[in-house]
């Protein structure tokens, strides 16, 4: 199965470890990975700041880049950016050429945990991590992409890992892309509450599916001199893997590329 890696600008610029972990996990489950080098960014930094005109070229470039390899799927390590790719057909709706292209692109795009659980049917990725951890549920992945299950299912099967619930899991960490830079006075109060909530769980590891949020929360931990280990879900699932532990959802098995039924994430509950 051919999978295009949607690397995201944050991973390209900052987090090689996240990209690497994602590729290794995907290849372990039989994916042929491709990294189109023309790709850059989903356009959120400029678009969300109101620079809509300037964002059009960013979007078109991303669509072309991700479609430049004829792959079955496009998979990315950031819930927020993946959601933006899903929104591109809407933002490009007035473009006679790119509206349809963007739709083709969006239809085969998945966030990493979503792809593993919903498309590949993986329950247990075979990983082991001996730690107490908590999970930050990022806003766009939860509310806009509607994915609130996959990461928890996958984390629930990691050997040795104890997950503790994060208080106020529904609240934004204060990242918000350019918001974190433009409104530091407000963002600081938000991320401080998040850091305090994480500390209150006594977890030693903080996990998420959005590198942007991790960069924000982790960066604040470091500034405050508080201890934490930051891990993207892909890094957790790539830790001490033993393939004999791998389990699939019922009725699926290794190499079952074709998706019989990708459960619609959005139908799983009220959007809170």
């Amino acid at each position: 199965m051919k999978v295009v890696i949607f690397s995201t600008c944050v991973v390209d610029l900052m987090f090689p470890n996240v990209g690497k972990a994602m590729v290794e996990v995907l290849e372990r489950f039989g994916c042929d990975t491709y990294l189109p080098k023309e790709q850059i960014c989903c356009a959120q930094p400029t678009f969300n700041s109101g620079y809509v005109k300037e964002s059009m070229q960013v979007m078109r470039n991303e669509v072309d880049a991700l479609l430049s390899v004829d792959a079955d799927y496009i998979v990315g390590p950031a819930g927020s950016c993946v959601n933006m790719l899903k929104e591109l057909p809407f933002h490009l709706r007035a473009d006679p050429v790119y509206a349809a292209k963007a739709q083709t692109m969006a239809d085969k795009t998945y966030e990493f945990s979503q792809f593993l659980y919903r498309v590949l049917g993986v329950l247990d990725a075979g990983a082991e991590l001996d730690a107490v951890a908590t999970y930050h549920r990022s806003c766009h992945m939860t509310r806009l992409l509607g994915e609130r299950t996959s990461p928890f299912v996958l984390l629930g099967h990691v050997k040795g890992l104890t997950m503790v619930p994060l208080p106020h899991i529904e609240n934004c960490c204060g990242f918000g892309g350019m918001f974190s830079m433009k409104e530091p006075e407000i963002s600081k109060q938000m991320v401080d509450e998040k850091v305090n909530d994480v500390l209150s769980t006594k977890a030693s590891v903080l996990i998420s599916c959005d590198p942007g949020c991790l960069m924000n929360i982790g960066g604040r931990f470091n500034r405050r001199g508080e201890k934490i280990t930051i891990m993207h879900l892909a890094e957790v699932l790539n830790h001490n893997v033993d393939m004999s532990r791998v389990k699939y959802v019922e009725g699926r098995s290794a190499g079952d590329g074709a998706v019989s039924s990708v459960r619609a994430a959005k139908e799983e509950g009220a959007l809170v």
Partner: protein
Amino acid sequence: MSSMVNGKKAAQYLRTSKAPFLTRVKESEQDKFAQQAVAKAQDAQWVKREAARQELGNWEQWRDLGEQIRQHVIRYLPDYLEEFSDNVEKRGGHVFFAQTDDEAAQYIKQIAIEKKAKHVVKSKSMVTSEINLDPTLMTVPGLEVLETDLAEFILEEDDWDQPTHLVFPALHKNREQVRQVFEKKLGYKGDNDPQHMARFSRKVLRKHFLEADMGITGCNFAVADTGMINLVTNEGNADLAMCIPKTQVVVMGMERLVPTMKEAETMDNMLARSAVGQKLTSYLTYTAPRTGQESDGPDDFYVVILDNGRSNALGTVFEPILQCIRCASCLNVCPIYRHIGGHGYGSIYPGPVGSVLSPVLDGGYDDFGDLPYACSLCAACTATCPVKIPLHQLMIEHRRIMMDDQSQANLIDDTVMRVMGLGTGHSSLFRTALGVDHTMLTPISKKQPETAKNLFASDRHVEWMPFVFGGWTKVRDLPDPPKHGQNFRSWFAHHKKEQQA
């Protein structure tokens, strides 16, 4: 957009503070009590609201229905307004269409003068704050205005302090503050037990109700096909304000209509669950001018229908904001409201709904241009809104108008953003940037033991950045980007080579 109506500016009384945005944010941060009160209320409401919605079942379908009803009304607004006002007049009531706040307030003042009103009782209504009604009425010699909603009553007694929430206007006050106000202004002698204070104010208010000669209420929904006004409260004060005085004035935003009682029932159900997490509120009232056979109700019934900048939204991307039913659940889930509170927004409409609505009513960005940026786009508001207003998308629309259409950013930040647009739009530029060893940052990066592990690819991080990026390093450390040979793309290329070998 422009809110000039017949040479007069609409929506002049939205602002609750003259202080600049950042000053208000700082002030809110210092008011630890108010911050904790908001956080506590949000957490408690979260549980109550979600339980009430779950109990109803199929909440997402209810939202679709709520959205359809409100969208339909807004699309056919002129027709429904006509039908409603015809029906009010058929029952012997009077309808006045006010284009601006002043027009509305002056009209009501005129009624008070004509009726020689001495004691005006009011129930809670955001729209009367919007038209600056209380101060206007108090310019009439010998006329006394009393807010009868408990929270509004507290604010009035505290020298007309400003509300900070659409449903819980005195959320920022603690019980001791309330006791002190009561003691100073009303001679209250008791303790600060909320029940005791509520009982005391009930006594004070009852007396005023009985002597009231004019009642003023807002309106939750106006039913077009019957000409009735629907009010939703938990204290019953609105009912008294409507039943006792001979003269009755209702003030409503022009969008507040529903076609029939059937839709009113649906909306009431969603409103109560969204606003206070109840099945229904304690009092749910429908009223209209008294007709022939009826034994109660006011003799004179006036409905003031207010535009005040609302029509700025019609036919624009902002039209959905007119669907709003003022349930305030977007405030109750908003992480920004959680920290800066109602006063931080500086508008009588705070929270996500206020950030979208205030600039629309104002007709520009001079007063409220900061608000659409005071949003992390977390979309909690969009997800909770019972009538599915895409609030976070409308924030981006405001930003788009300010940046693309009006170029309002300061020059440096503007350039940075435009360069970012270029850099992320042209892959050769981006790859050049990736290719540079980020030695540029080395002089400002620090090598220090890091307490956040696995966040930083190198053993260095950055504590200071220029331009708009400085906002990041004001609050948190930034990983020093990996050197070219160690970034993800280099790793991937190497990895593929190894696979092929």
